[in-house]
């Protein structure tokens, strides 16, 4: 089986994630989109690692997972905090920069 399919799948997953981030309003869903993009990247890293027969990509994938785990903690904390002050999880309500 060609490794190209993995690359195409990663691209599709990344696109879905990006579309989720750009189009959805709910912060939790947006967050899920971010995770999806991270995982698409991980898949890409692993695929290239296999393609070149090197372990660097796999090692980097682990780093991404660790950072993603930490990021989830911080991100969820921010979302919860925003929800507590604004009674809303919509990202459009967080537009203090404009007004």
């Amino acid at each position, binding site marked *: 089986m060609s490794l190209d399919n993995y690359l195409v799948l990663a691209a599709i997953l990344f696109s879905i994630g*990006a579309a989720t*981030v750009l189009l959805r309003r709910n912060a939790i869903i947006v967050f899920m989109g971010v995770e999806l993009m991270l995982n698409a990247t991980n898949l890409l890293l692993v695929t290239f690692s296999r393609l070149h027969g090197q372990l660097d990509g796999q090692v980097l994938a682990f780093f991404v997972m660790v950072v993603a785990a930490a990021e989830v903690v911080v991100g969820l904390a921010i979302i919860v905090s925003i929800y507590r002050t604004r009674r809303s999880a919509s990202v*459009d309500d967080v537009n203090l920069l*404009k007004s």
Partner: protein
Amino acid sequence: MNTLTSWATSAPFADIGPAAAEPVSAGIYAVAPLLVGLPLGSAALLLLLGRRSDRWGHWLGVLASAAAFVVGLLTFLAMLDRDASNRVLDVRVGDWIDAGAFHLSAGMRLDPLSMTFVLLVTFVGTLIHVYSVAYMDHDRDRRRFFAYLNLFVAAMLVLVLADSYLLMFVGWEGVGLASYLLIGFWNHRTPYAVAAKKAFVANRIGDIGLIVALGLMFATFGGVDFTTVLGANMSGVSEATLTGIGLMLLLAACGKSAQFPLQSWLGDAMAGPTPVSALIHAATMVTAGVYLIVRSAPVFDAAPTAQLVVVVVGAITLLFGAIVGCAKDDIKKALAASTMSQIGYMVLAAGLGPVGYAFAIFHLVTHGFFKAGMFLGAGSVMHGMDDQVDMRRFGGLARYMKITYVTFGLGWLAILGVPPFSGFWSKDKIIEAAFIPTDGHTWRAWLFGSVALLGAGITAFYMSRLFFMTFEGERRWSTRTDGSQQHPHEAPALMTWPMIILAIGSAGLGLVLGLGNRFVDWLAPVTGEHEHGEPVLAPGVLVALTLVLVVVGAVLAWRRYAISTVPVIPPVGTALTRAARVDLYQDAVNDALLVEPGQHLTRSLVYVDKTVVDGATVGVGQTTVGLGQLLRKTQTGYVRSYAATMLLGLVVLVATVLVIQS
């Protein structure tokens, strides 16, 4: 220091030139600065203390002026002790400007000319101060009035005592300011405030002349003090430059002395209280132009063209003022027109050169007495007639105000030039001098002599008209607003005594100073002693002709205004009368020639400023704001739009890299 200055030998009629100045500092001369200091200090005190000095402020003003007169008299007596050739003195007060190569010290030039002015200003000034105490009795702002009067006296003394044109300019501006403040003293009435502004603006035009003259003098002689400028060797200077300086000085004199073509302000200046008209607009300030010309004699002597212009201006103004004076019904405006005409005589005499300088100043002094006296008389009449100024509403006042009648009558005889009263000694001399050919031009002698002679006749007519309409004939008094009759009454003693003293001066001063050429000899250290040609008519014939004209003028006025009935409503009159009533259309001419083009110019400048200049600056701002508005639309505040921008940027970046690499 008795050497003759070099210009004297080059002047055509000069036998003995003016003496050079001698520096003095000791004795009475050390207190000479008090002449200026006393009234100036009093003015400052009265203005700074404000209402706290309301109760005694007017007496302080009188005291300051009287003290200045005493100092002036002491200086005068000290000067009389000196030889005639040693009477030009310089009192150094201090350094004024010390800038590199340019040094100018502030000092006082004490000589017969400036002492004459000091005595005239302080003596007449003190009398008018005393008069004002009673005249302004009911005015809330009497203290402020006296502060301004003192300021005027101080500025006038700076003007005549200065030893340089620059210091004189300070006094020149000072009297202009005082005149402005006093014309507009009742500035709660808009026409009065406008009159003050008009006087100020007309004076400013003259001041430009003085400033340009100062610049020319500095460029030509390298200094502006009298010693440098007037003592310079005029033969080494081009005549064109001297003519330029002379004409600029004449412009300054025209502004200050209300001479043609800057004469329009003097009539309106009568808006000020009557003592102001007497002091500033009759006796002293308006004669500053004559002083300027006489003081600058060496310049004018070396510039015959400028002298001719001076004579022409004087001749035009003396006829102009006389014609206007014949038609005015406002007693003060008639007197103002007369002042203009009489100063025309003085300017004419000053323009005649060495032969006329002394007579110009002589007429100035006698005029200062009789005209101030008549203005005070007019003030007394107004005081008794509920501030009425329309002569058609007077008549028959001789019985009710005897002192005013007699004092005014003496002034009237003096201005007519009836011997032996003052005017005869000074005005006839000017007429005689006008008939003396200058540089051999007989036509000039005939022309200007005839103008001066004719002026004397018209003067007799309009002054007699004024006198008869006011004091003779039948009563034409208006009833008061409440329907009661007017009760003319004599003014209080504080007002009558100054009038009496001035009337004595009007009657006798000419005789005292004119007999044996005393006044001319007294001024000789400044004007030089000169021999002159003979007039084209014998002096005796001239005196007789003048007297005939005066009598004719007076009799005509007697027939029209004393015997026959004077209509209360002014008749339509001839075209000349109608023109003279509106000052020969001078305001219309000024408006058409200067004011309206000026307004159009400013309006178009304002338009250019608003469209072009403001358009450019405001346009830059508006463009920036517009661009900002456009860019602002991209800042939505939505995270997703920022994220989309980032993604788009990334895609573009990657695509670019790929395209470049492939």
